[in-house]
């Protein structure tokens, strides 16, 4: 039995137990709340950032009372006959703006020197909901950047504590040496005594990080992402699927990432999430290492998709060769 739910006036049928967020993703477009911590490929994520707050105008057909508080759409299951307001609710807009203000309060706003700029979810959110001026007059909290092994850099100043990387560590690696230390605004991502995350799949933490807190040391400061051309590429690999996006300038590969969907999540390919192994990500930066199929369509709304190369709006233009 499917359940019916209405989001911003659009009705959709989903499996019972589906979250409001996933029901909204089935509708697509403006009905979809932003999600900074939920990651559909990492069970257990969600509920933390509160950017996905929505208003439930009617709880269910059986009990049509509105819910008094806004709810986190990523971790609230739909009920049959539920009516939800996202984009159409002023209250949601205001409170989401509040959440964005909180996320930016201690953020260093160092986008000009951050490798994530251009593909950062916090930038997008700040652009949509933030105000041009900050009301935060206090000293921002700071941490020293630390190396997590020799391939990953942690800039704790930029972290929004979405816990996604912790779940990667939990779910992709056998020995978690990565977690959260301290409480409140002193909470920080840590590898427990700065122990390196030694695992073939640790690089995926970079891909799930919604901001520039975890970046690829093999790509640091090499180029702005919007100067690079994303190309779909493949190599045969014994550890992972070997299906990646290589980011090129001329004939040089500057960085390798997983293939991501419009929500910024690593895609499923042949029914499996296409996580990349560290070997493919960090050790294969020569065009000869890869079979390059053609330009990768970046259909996530962001600075890069405004760029000069392929977007979902225009047909990909073959630029290479």
């Amino acid at each position, binding site marked *: 039995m499917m359940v019916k739910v209405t989001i911003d006036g659009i009705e959709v049928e989903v499996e019972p137990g589906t979250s409001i967020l996933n029901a909204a993703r089935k509708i697509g477009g403006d009905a979809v709340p932003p999600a900074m911590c939920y990651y559909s490929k990492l069970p257990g994520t*969600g*509920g*933390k*950032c*509160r*950017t996905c*707050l929505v208003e439930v105008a009617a709880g269910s057909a059986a009990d049509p009372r509105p819910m*008094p*508080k*806004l709810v*986190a759409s990523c*971790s609230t*299951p739909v009920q049959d006959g539920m009516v939800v307001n996202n984009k159409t609710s002023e209250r949601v807009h205001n*409170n989401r703006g*509040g*959440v964005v*203000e*909180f*996320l930016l*309060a*201690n953020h260093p706003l160092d986008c000009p020197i951050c490798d994530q700029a251009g593909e950062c979810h916090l930038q997008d959110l700040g652009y949509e909901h933030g105000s041009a001026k900050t*009301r*935060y007059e*206090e000293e921002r*909290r700071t941490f020293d950047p630390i190396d997590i092994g020799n391939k990953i850099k942690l800039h704790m100043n930029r972290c*929004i*504590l979405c*816990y996604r990387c912790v779940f990667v560590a939990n779910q992709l690696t056998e020995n978690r040496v990565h*977690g*959260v230390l*301290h*409480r*409140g*605004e*002193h*909470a920080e991502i840590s590898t427990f005594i700065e122990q390196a995350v030694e695992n073939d799949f640790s690089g995926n933490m970079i891909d799930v990080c919604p901001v520039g807190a975890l970046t690829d040391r093999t790509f640091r400061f090499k180029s702005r992402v919007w100067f690079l051309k994303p190309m779909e590429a493949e190599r045969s690999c014994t550890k992972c699927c070997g299906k990646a996006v290589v980011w090129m300038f001329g004939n040089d590969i500057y960085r390798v990432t997983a293939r991501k969907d419009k929500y910024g999540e690593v895609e499923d390919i042949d029914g499996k999430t296409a996580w990349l192994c560290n070997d493919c990500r960090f050790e294969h930066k020569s065009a000869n290492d890869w079979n390059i199929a053609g330009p990768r369509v970046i259909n996530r709304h962001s600075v890069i998709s405004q760029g000069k190369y392929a977007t979902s709006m225009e047909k990909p233009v073959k630029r290479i060769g």
Partner: protein
Amino acid sequence: MKNRRLLLEHVDVPGIDGIDVYVKQGGYASLEKALKKMSPEDVVEEVKKSGLRGRGGAGFPTGMKWSFLAKPEGVPRYLVCNADESEPGTFKDRYLMEKIPHLLIEGMILSSFALGANQSYIYIRGEFMYVLNILEKAIAEAYAKGYLGKNILGSGYDLDLVVTPGGGAYICGEETALLESLEGKRGNPRIKPPFPAVKGLWGCPTVVNNVESIAAVVPIVRDGGDAYAAIGIGRSTGTKLISACGNLARPGVYEIDLGLSVEEFIYGDDYCRGIANGKQLKACVPGGSSVPILPHFLVTKTATGEDRLMTYESLAEGGFASGSMLGSGGFIVFDEDQCIVRNTWNFARFYAHESCGQCSPCREGTGWMEKVLSRIEHGQGHMHDIDLLADINKKIEGNTICPLGDAAAWPVAAAIHHFREEFEWHIKHPSEAQTRNYGLIQQPVVA
């Protein structure tokens, strides 16, 4: 005695912390009664009839909570006692456990029996190590007498009881953070649903109750739910432990009948005997640091001029505009010399320190409020800070995973609402505010 009726009746009897004296005073009679003459359902029924409401702060009816417990076949159920008591101004559970530990243990056995739990836990605040020792000694005595362990009093019912200390975090008093901590993990509150009644400790159905709620089951079983419900007014039944502190002539832990007037509680001879040193009452936080502060003219009377009573309903009368909450029973009194700004900052500092940091509004909002309040207190405030604080409050309230966010927001909102002129005075007279306090509120603000 008037101020110690059911739970603290024998608290001053020498040696009451030992099992022999406790039994001599009628202890474990409720347990004998329940195991020999009652079914678990009968016990639940008496608790429902008693009208007992959770004494941990939220006041949720205990009998109803127990009846929500899922009972799937072949899955263990757990009872966990919340002895994390860390709310500023609240020290009633500690007093009870320290003075009369067997009351909690008897209550735990009764409640576990009612819920069908064969393994129960007392999760105690990490700083209470000496209380943990008292409880462990009492538990060992109860095992030796056959009140715990296998086949208790020949009834066929088995129960093991363990005390586990936390690491000293206020957030581990939130029931789902407590369960995480009990499982040996970082004490982050869980995202609900699922609720503990369905998926609690180790993923099994679990009831979490406050120390005082569990202790109250002992007189409820002994005298019957109706007798308990006969004490109090309306939906506030029975007695309540109140830890009274601040500028009172006689602070301490009192067991009051719910329905006592606030006037009598503060000024009565059997209770706090008025404000210390002949000073005047300025404000009161009646239910622990998380509840709204009341200015002096709303403490003993409501906004409509009725007597304010020590009940869940009367203390909340007037909502956030002119009321507060009974909360955990941490009754904090301020005299005319106390500074509301400094106190608000102090509470804010506590919440910023104790936020687990999981969700953005609480993590960033509590830290932000603390910094703004610190500036105002230390003579660097601006007029726009007051509205900023009010706005930060609104953006936290209701938008967080657990109620700590609200608990941090409400006291600041209430302080600004009732004492705005004191905040303004601080900002306008930064150097004067460093050397003297504002004093009594001048004009009753119309709510």
